[in-house]
């Protein structure tokens, strides 16, 4: 693409944005109110972790549909431009390059996997394109770029919570199975550090690739080490299989997991009986009784014919933040980034479904809440941490 049409398109958008200001905003606002708001949305729409992709895309789309009915967005052309990273870091780079070169986009919502966000953020950084992840919990995500924000907590919070649980239950020997990418490795590392500090022995750490077609060798080698419990650091489309195989091969010890499992009903549906007794951290449970979440769940269910999981809620909130920031920042990358940075304290926080969301200097959501839940009779039950 030559430079000229791109800048021409940009000029057209800016012009339409300026004329939009005259038409819609009566008072002299800081930034022009945009007419066209296209938001990039990146996630694992296909590939081995497409289960998440479907949930988060539905969550984001629901938020866009709501905005269309909102008077403040009246007359605007709102839409999501989706990019499928297939949960693969190399694919995430391709998606990010596409977004970076797309002058329509003032912001990207994504990515889901930590490895994808980490791979994509240098490109967003170079293009000065603000991006807000709704799923990446690897500790390093926020600090690596000033243009990267995220709404979930960090892995270290989950690792510490799980390690406290292990110590309290008196498990002496714990084995770790982790997915060979940034989320799994990051969670395994934070758990390992916290567990060793609490006097727990880590008997082994085995890793798998998300394309693995047979988990029995790993499971048998874990069984040979006679652990008291096993930490599953990865994502449920794979871990539900690991849980099934573990029970079939007679590895009948408690399973622990992070939010790659926690609060996703699909894990329980896929693993069936094998899921019973799994203890997992999660941001919160969709089933928990809060009127706003219950209302969201009902709406989601009637729109998409299935209950949401907490990642759908996170994507919904991140899309909401992106919309607000675009409204304030004027559909222009610098302005949107400034608007995101302005969510800097509890007082100025975005009122999300997950609770108030605001960012620290790194762009990480300030969040100390992590829920610990156990699977009992096909449902998650919150246990006190």
């Amino acid at each position, binding site marked *: 693409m030559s430079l000229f049409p791109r800048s021409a398109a940009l000029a057209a958008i800016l012009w339409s944005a300026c004329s939009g200001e005259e038409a819609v905003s009566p008072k002299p606002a800081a930034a022009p109110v945009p007419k066209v708001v296209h938001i990039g949305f990146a996630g694992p*729409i*296909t*590939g*081995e972790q*497409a*289960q998440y*992709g*479907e949930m988060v895309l539905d969550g984001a789309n629901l938020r866009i549909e709501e905005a269309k009915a909102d008077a403040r967005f009246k007359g605007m052309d709102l839409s999501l431009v989706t990019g499928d990273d297939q949960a693969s870091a190399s694919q995430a780079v391709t998606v990010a390059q596409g977004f970076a070169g797309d002058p329509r986009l003032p912001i990207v919502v994504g990515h889901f996997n930590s490895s994808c966000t980490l791979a994509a953020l240098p490109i967003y950084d170079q293009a000065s394109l603000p991006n807000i992840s709704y799923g990446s919990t690897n500790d390093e995500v926020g600090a690596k770029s000033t243009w990267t924000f995220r709404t979930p907590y960090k892995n270290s919070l989950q690792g510490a919570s799980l390690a406290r649980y292990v110590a309290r239950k008196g498990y002496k020997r714990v084995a770790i199975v982790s997915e*060979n990418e940034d989320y799994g490795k990051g969670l395994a590392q934070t758990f390992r550090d916290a567990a060793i500090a609490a006097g727990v022995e*880590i*008997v*082994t*750490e*085995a*890793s*798998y*690739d998300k*394309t*693995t*077609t*047979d*988990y*029995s*060798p*790993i499971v*048998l*080698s874990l*069984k*040979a*080490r006679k652990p008291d419990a096993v930490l599953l650091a990865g994502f449920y*489309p794979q871990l539900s*299989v690991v849980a*099934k*195989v573990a029970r079939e*091969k007679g590895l009948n010890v408690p399973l622990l997991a992070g939010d790659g499992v926690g609060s996703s009903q699909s894990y329980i549906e*896929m693993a069936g009986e094998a899921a019973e007794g799994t203890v997992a951290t999660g941001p919160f449970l969709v089933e928990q009784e809060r009127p706003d979440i219950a209302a969201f769940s009902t709406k989601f269910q009637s729109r998409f014919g299935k209950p949401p999981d907490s990642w759908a809620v996170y994507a919904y909130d991140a899309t909401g933040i992106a919309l607000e920031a675009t409204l304030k920042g004027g559909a222009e990358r610098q302005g949107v980034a400034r608007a995101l940075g302005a969510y800097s304290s509890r007082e100025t926080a975005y009122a999300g479904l997950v609770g108030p969301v605001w960012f620290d200097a790194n762009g990480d959501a300030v969040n100390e809440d992590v829920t610990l839940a156990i699977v009992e009779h096909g449902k998650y039950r919150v246990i006190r941490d």
Partner: protein
Amino acid sequence: MLDLLAASAWDGLASGCLIGLVAVGYSMAYGLARVVNFAHGELFTLAGYFALLLAGSPTPAEQHAAVAIVTVVGGLSAISMTWDRGAKVAGRAGALWGVVSAVLAAVVFRGGLPWWLVVGITVGLSSCVGMAIEFVAYRPLARADRLSPLVAAVGLSQCLVALMQGVFSPKSRFFPSSLTNPLSHLLPLPGALDTLVVTVTVVITAGAWIVARRSRAGIELRAVADDAVLAARLGINTARSARAAFGVGGALAGVAVILQVTRAHVLAPTMGYSYGILAFSAAVLGGIGNLGGALAGGILIGLVLSLLPMLAVIVEQWTGVSLSDQAALPRWLPVLDPSAWGLTLVYLAMAGVLVLRPRGILGERTWRTA
């Protein structure tokens, strides 16, 4: 410990047998049609989805898609089989079989079939898919240069993945228990599924050996594999043997995928790639074109992948050092994760075989480089 080692070996043997059955498909396609059929992994996956829909409760959209796919596949395989008799006959046969397949598919793809019917239909269908692939992607390129069929293979495999993601959703799925339970308990033994896998492989191998040595078709196939030009001069129909290679390879992939998904619980549109690479490596290890070698290569890979992690356990118990703990290891030694190193070892072995023994570990000369 010893019992776990034995369990691991048995597990590896079963997993290796299945890799081997798929590898035979790669090897036959190479031996008889001189193509590396990289779409074989996707054929394997597609057969898995056939079994899933036949045994489970498919949605109306999935039923329609399955009927459409089966109509095309049925028509194409009929055309492929009658192509020698002229375009007119082939066209009629294709149309007729397309309609028949559509009607049959509309009946069977309502799902809920008993396991033996699921196995039978899946194997038949995947054999037809194999023949259709040969007819569409490779036969027109029979006289093209070597690169063209390879490009066609990669393109076809991408198309099939996209088709499966679009039609059956990109999410991973499991077989229903109405299929997995009977298969798991077919033999009244502990670890019955793995025993079943090994038994099925032995029976198929024995059958194939007898057919290859005793029947006219088998002798013709061996002649084509040995020297296609000479065989053609002697009046053997080489196009028919190429079709047979894909048909048999497809059928074996159908058997393998049902057993594999039943024992490992992974069925996703993208699984054909990773499983296909394993099977292809097995075929190369055994000497591509050599069917016994492909099976042996598969078993070797299965055993390596399953015994290597156990070997690490033994080393750890012997030395008292955890191989996955950097703090406990000498500084010059990186963390060794045997579950991740297994694949590396397999590919290294493949590279080694290609360099040192290009005809495979068994070293038998089964084809001539022209």
